[in-house]
């Protein structure tokens, strides 16, 4: 089976990003639940190196995972090809906007 154009690549990206996000979500939920109340503790956690890097990787996984998932939804429900291209473009623009916004947040701390 050829890897390219078979949907295998999308499948692998979706599963690997899902695995990482699974661990990240469990870690983040635990970290937030056990946190003392108030802004200072929250800031200390979120500005910490570990959270920042774990979140950076999560953001990458979210963008890849989101792209594969939304692409599936678009392929299922948006049939006219011209309309599909427009929705693909809007999705990509949305994801890149989030990526650059997040990069701004990330580099503020390095």
């Amino acid at each position, binding site marked *: 089976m050829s890897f390219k154009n078979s949907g295998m690549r999308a499948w692998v990206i979706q*599963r690997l990003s*899902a*695995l990482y*996000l*699974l661990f990240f*979500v469990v870690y983040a939920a635990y970290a937030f639940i056990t946190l003392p109340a*108030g*802004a*200072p503790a*929250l*800031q200390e956690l*979120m*500005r910490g190196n570990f959270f920042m890097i774990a*979140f950076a990787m999560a953001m990458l996984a*979210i963008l890849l995972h*989101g792209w594969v*998932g*939304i692409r599936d*939804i678009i392929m299922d429900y948006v049939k006219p090809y011209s309309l599909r291209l427009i929705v693909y473009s809007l999705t990509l623009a949305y994801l890149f906007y*989030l990526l650059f*916004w*997040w990069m701004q*947040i990330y580099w*503020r*701390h390095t």
Partner: protein
Amino acid sequence: MQPKQAPVNLNLLSIRQPVTAIVSILHRITGLILFLSLPVLLYFIDLLTANESTAQQAMALYSASLSLRIVFLLVSVSAFHHVLAGVRYLLLDIDIGVTRSSARAMCWAIVVLDIIALPVIGWSML
């Protein structure tokens, strides 16, 4: 002569969907909700990590607005379901839960956990 047309039933609401179908469509809907909520999450992460005053501002915004908390509740419950139903797909990949009875059992377990999670997450967030 026209061939006799087979009846086509496209009204999904007229069929009682199996639990596996419900868990599956909820996985898709919650995925879309999570995707659309990303700017809200990023906005809060931006405020919380920028400096002390923006962090306080974010906390004040959150506690002042019930509708915002409802959005966060929706996102949390969506994430909960999406992760559970997603783990089911990962298990299916390694041939766990592929028979009809085990698939139905796993999906019922997910529905029960969702129903338990809703008030628990809701109580802690609202």
